[in-house]
């Protein structure tokens, strides 16, 4: 695996053992089975927790983790991306735990320790049916009274929701402040529709009708939008690392295929038009890999700089994802269209990453807004 940034010995070892474990226990032939139902993922989760002890690698030491931080998330997701199995790690450990880590209170600490030992899988439910990718457009409400907080509203295409033990639901309180409500999937007043995603993953459409929240996380009066934006940026960069892993696999498979496949009495690889497309795919991948790695250093900068840097990285990732994804399908010809090969599945995963938190245009606009022409 070509590194996103110079890895420490520990990181290199971690990525290597994860990659080998995935090759042995979750090769492409078993992937469909692992995704057949939300419960079928259990062997992967158990492996990450028990065989590899990886869940806590990035989490803070005081919560039972090893303190590797976002850098370790990227290293892990690059390998999970290569295996086309990013979830539930991305949603639960990067985003879910990332939020808990920054929320005050004993309950958050307790849940975080649960993430590190594999018993808690928190998933953020933030976007709403008409809100596009805007984390601030929240019509869901939370009202407190009679010693309980009750949640009402709807959340759209909540990725990895069926895997969750807890949902972190964004909602506005009486004062209009954005809060996070901790909700258990078996609470009352929940309508739920589990969805298969185009990339084979799981999501759910959720509606709440006076659903009792187990707790309201965060301090009363503190709007959590900045925290959600930070979590979204981290999720986006992590998805970039994942995409780098997916693309690496696609480049490998595609180079293999064009070397072997003969047409007009000669390998496809001998055609210059094919060669040039491969060169362009490779360069797009190189750029994405370099910028995802370099953006790590921008993650502790003030929010405007961080948001701009992540948007820029996502532009490189989304463009590479399209170039490599579409190119791989095209160069595989009819074989690229079948459900039997990994190439089609990798392409679908890249397509979803490309639109993760908005298209290239959304992110370009964000970069443009950082430096207005005035």
């Amino acid at each position: 695996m070509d590194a996103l940034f110079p890895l420490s010995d520990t990181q290199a070892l971690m990525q290597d053992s994860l990659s080998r474990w995935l090759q042995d226990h979750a090769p492409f032939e078993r992937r469909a089975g692992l995704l057949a139902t939300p419960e079928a993922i259990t062997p992967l989760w158990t492996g990450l927790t028990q065989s590899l002890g990886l869940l806590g690698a990035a989490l803070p030491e005081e919560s039972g983790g090893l303190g590797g931080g976002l850098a370790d998330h990227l290293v892990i997701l690059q390998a999970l991306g290569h295996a086309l199995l990013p979830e539930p790690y991305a949603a639960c450990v990067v985003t879910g735990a990332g939020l808990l880590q920054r929320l005050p209170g004993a309950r958050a600490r307790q849940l975080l320790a649960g993430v590190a030992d594999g018993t808690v899988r928190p998933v953020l439910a933030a976007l709403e049916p008409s809100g596009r990718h805007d984390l601030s457009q929240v019509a869901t409400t939370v009202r407190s009274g009679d010693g309980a907080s009750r949640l009402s509203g709807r959340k759209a295409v909540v990725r990895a929701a069926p895997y969750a033990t807890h949902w972190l639901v964004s909602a506005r309180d009486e004062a209009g402040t954005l809060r996070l409500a901790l909700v258990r999937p078996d609470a009352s007043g929940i309508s739920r529709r589990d969805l298969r995603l185009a990339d084979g993953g799981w999501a759910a459409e959720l509606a709440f009708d006076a659903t009792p929240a187990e707790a309201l996380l965060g301090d009363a009066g503190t709007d959590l939008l900045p925290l959600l934006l930070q979590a979204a940026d981290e999720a986006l960069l992590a998805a970039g690392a994942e995409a780098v892993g997916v693309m690496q696999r696609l480049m490998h498979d595609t180079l293999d295929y064009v070397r072997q496949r003969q047409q007009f009495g000669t390998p496809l690889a001998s055609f210059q038009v094919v060669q040039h497309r491969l060169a362009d795919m490779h360069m797009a991948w190189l750029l994405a890999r370099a910028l995802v790695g370099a953006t790590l250093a921008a993650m502790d900068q003030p929010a405007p700089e961080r948001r701009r840097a992540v948007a820029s990285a996502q532009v490189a990732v989304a463009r590479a994802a399209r170039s490599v994804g579409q190119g791989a399908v095209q160069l595989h010809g009819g074989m690229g269209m079948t459900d039997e090969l990994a190439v089609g599945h990798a392409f679908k995963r890249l397509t979803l990453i490309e639109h993760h938190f908005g298209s290239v245009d959304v992110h370009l606009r964000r970069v443009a807004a950082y430096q207005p022409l005035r």
Partner: protein
Amino acid sequence: MVSSPACNQSTAADDAFRDEVRQFLATELTDDLRLAGQRTAGIFTDHDDGQRWFRILARRGWAVPHWPVQWGGCGWTPRQHAIFASELSAAQAPVLAPQGVRMVAPVLLAFGTPEQQARWLPAIRNGDDYWAQGYSEPGSGSDLASLQCKAVRDGDSYVINGTKIWTTHAQWANRIFCLVRTSSAGKPQQGISFLLFDMDTPGITVRPIISISGDHELNQVFFDDVRVPATALLGEENKGWTIAKYLLVHERGGTYAPALRARLGRLQRAAVQAFADRPADDDERRDVARLLADAACRIDALHALEQQVLAARIRGEDQPIAPSVGKLLGTELRQFITEIAVTIAGPYGAARLPQADCAAHVLALPEDAIWAMSTYLNDRAASIYAGTNEVQRNLIAQHLLSH
């Protein structure tokens, strides 16, 4: 333990170095030199201003920072090289022609005899010599190995007959390095030799080639029974192809992002001015802002990649296609930025006159707009020189397919 890419962390020593470079630029980069740099629409600044700036750098010991320290190099870290390049670009210093410092010097260092090194390198370093590159011929462009310009050994001399084309700044050069055919036996690559000699040797004529931008950077050079000493030969006779390729890799190397970032800053300022009197919700302003953001993102990615390549080079990793990748991405991004410049120029982009004349009238014209079209036209060459981008894609694909 949180690890982050070392290349993005600036140390106190780096900051001090940056201050030192800025201090130097504040005192030594005079307004007229800055203006010459700003007006550079071609690949390099014109000879006179370029050499004037080069000698100032030479006095400070900063003319050949990449060279080995024993020959006058600075022994800087990659980070320091990046800082130096970005500060010079940001200050709009003249852009120096690379034929001496970055093209012939690396091959002299790698393949020259001690006598050849002692003869040529100091004069490059102090700015006394100005070199031209004799590679392409009318019939040999991308297929360089098919070159026909001939050199025949005659006693202690070689006698050269033939022609070279696209010879940048040959009208200013007092030295030239040439690929010549010394044998027609075997594969075309096998009969090529690398010669270095004086431009005032009898039998050499230079014909100007005016480019589509109206500038005179290029020439065709004719050799008519030109007799040069046998010591002009670099390396072995008929083994010049290896040297030629080594030079091309150096020509393609280097970083693009610092200069592109500076150029983008200039476009940003030009755009602010161009749209100053337009309404706040002007559609075209929004379009241009988006184009500039697009270029900024692409520069971010190229910068990250260049830093990664630099760091890997320091670790001693072999990166055979990195020069091709860098040349391709750098030149195509450069061309994209010139397209944006023309968009920002608006109607004034159509006018053609020397930039120096823009203000010299009661009806002044925006110099940035004139520069924009000129640089757009000139920069079409970027995907052609140093091995066309088609050839670079071939090289990248061949590497990918054989690994």
